[in-house]
């Protein structure tokens, strides 16, 4: 079981080593990096490459660790009891399995994705320590122990909104996806749009990396925005020349709305373009 990247995902050497280490040593792998650098997709790709099922747990600000194990729906039971429903006699009817439960009892060794763990409360990761360590937990209501037959491959992503607790970090392997350089980005674009014209790609990447350098942007465009933008450029059949702006008045790249999602950033960008144009005139 070794992950070597897939034909739809470009995995750098260091990422590959980190993934394989996590698989072989059965540790959770924590993936961080700018939004849009392929953290979530990675888990899917690992699952695909290993032909393993994937179980996704998307974390929200209100998600509690317990929900990953199971939830006991006391409120429904209370209602049912008032309505005289027969189901009420068996507490098991009110136990709702969580994603970890699913993962632990999967017949094949699954990839368990805990996506955007930093969205939850600061204590959330700590509340999962024991379960992720031992890969088992106890259901008080029904007095059963749910134990993993095979340890799921746990992949955790974070966008760095919150600091993760040390005790949690100590148990994970860690990989930080660095923003792809041109070479890597070209490979990434290639897996998505193999037929893209070389000239267009070159010019587009020039523009893209220039925009990323604009100081003060609220949200720098990332891989996903680049891919969206390229798709538009292709649909509109844009010529590479249209992107070559160095000499012309055209300082705002065509269809830049796909790259800059934030109104303030668009304004900032337009203002800079305006100033640059004025300078050229002088």
């Amino acid at each position, binding site marked *: 079981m070794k992950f070597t990247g897939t034909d739809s995902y470009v995995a750098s050497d*260091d990422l590959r080593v980190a993934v394989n*280490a996590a698989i072989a040593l059965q540790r959770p792998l924590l993936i961080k990096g700018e939004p849009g650098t392929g953290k979530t997709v990675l888990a899917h790709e690992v699952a695909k490459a290993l032909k393993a099922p994937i179980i996704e747990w998307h974390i929200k600000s209100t998600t509690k660790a317990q929900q990953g194990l199971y939830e006991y729906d006391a409120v429904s039971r209370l209602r049912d009891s008032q309505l005289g429903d027969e189901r009420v006699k068996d507490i098991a009817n009110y136990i709702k399995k969580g994603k970890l439960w699913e993962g632990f009892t999967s017949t094949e060794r699954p990839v368990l994705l805990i996506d955007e763990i930093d969205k939850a*409360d600061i204590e959330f990761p700590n509340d999962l320590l024991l379960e992720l360590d031992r890969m088992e937990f106890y259901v008080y209501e029904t007095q059963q122990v749910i134990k993993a037959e095979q340890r799921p491959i746990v992949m955790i992503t974070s966008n760095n909104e919150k*600091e993760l607790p040390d005790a949690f970090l*100590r148990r994970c392997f860690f990989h930080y996806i*660095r923003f792809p350089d041109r070479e890597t980005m070209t490979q990434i674009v290639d897996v998505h749009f193999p037929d893209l014209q070389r000239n267009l790609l070159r010019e587009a990447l020039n523009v893209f990396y220039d925009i990323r350098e604009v100081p*003060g942007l609220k949200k720098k465009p990332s891989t996903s925005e680049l891919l969206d933008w390229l798709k538009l450029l292709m649909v509109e059949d844009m010529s590479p020349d249209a992107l070559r702006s160095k000499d012309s008045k055209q300082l705002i790249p065509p269809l830049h709305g796909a790259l800059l999602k934030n109104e303030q950033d668009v304004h900032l960008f337009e203002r800079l373009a305006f100033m640059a144009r004025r300078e050229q005139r002088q």
Partner: protein
Amino acid sequence: MFVNFFLELRQAKVPVSIKEYLALMEGMDKGVSDYSVDDFYYLSRAILVKDERNLDKFDKVFGHIFKGLEAVPGDGVAAEIPEEWLRKLAEKLLTEEEKAQIEALGGWEKLMETLKKRLEEQQKRHQGGSKWIGTAGTSPFGAHGFNPEGVRIGQDKNREGRAVKVWDKREYKNLDDTVEIGTRNIKIALRRLRKFAREGAEVELDMPDTIRSTARNAGYLDIKMVPERRNKVKLLILFDIGGSMDAHIRVCEELFSAARSEFKHLEFFYFHNCLYEKLWKDNRRRHVDTFSTAQLLHTYPADYKVLFVGDASMSPYEIAYPGGSVEHWNEESGQTWIQRVADTYRSMVWLNPVPERHWSYTPSIQLLQQLSSNRMFPLTLGGLDSAMKELNK
């Protein structure tokens, strides 16, 4: 060199413990990576570093430690790591007895120290010869000796003669949190503030609504929950504006104006250079619309936490003497006012955008550092953390 690697990582403040060490051994044992230098670097990085802020420190240490070992003429980049030795060491470390021994030796740190010393001794003893021989028996690590050949990790033929090694590129430099806050990491800084603002959004029973709904529901229970209200911290931010602060103003303002929405009780006031008898809330109307500092002290109760943001860079007169202000005649010295704030609010910090290494050259910074009882922190992610920690005390 492996021991040094760990020692240096710890010296560089990359927190590595025996847990990570053992994991690395296990990883090497299971052959997770090819035995190329790069793979060894990647593997140890994935296992030993848990935070992108430490990646650069790790790279520096790695480069330092494995330097000189790489230069095998004609072989390009290669490092020699005595794998056999590592493995034996790991095996030994994993037994119960061994763990007890580590404890007996005074724990991990002690062990590393001893090990280092022991190796040095061996090296001296066998100077000239190529073999390092262990003192079998008594020492927990000497029994297996030292494999003089080692395993050449690397000798990566494809990459022969490559000039820059991965770790020497120092690609994670700007993730180190000891650098000043700039556009790159301002978001992270904000999140730190947010973390400070938030104290867990619990869901709690909404009693009044539950009663109301249950009554409306003909007596059948209808339970209503509400998210607990966040952030109870009361914060008073006093912000230096204009003059020498111009260079930092954008970063500071962006940071704190964005933080505003996160706090239920957050008050924001401006001053110029030093705090005197007047503050203002709107910088455009600073001369018309002022707020007296005395009133501030009476308006906001002592449980407010005070956060000064300013470069504290001025002539010491501006702090120490009445009339020292460059803008107006101040009856009482800035020092007096700052002292009053410090006396009123137990919790107070000063964040300074000036890099900490310059502080000692600026007398006014030192003066204000004293006035804030050494609670001045640099406006870096690390500094912000320390400041928040201080405020949380």
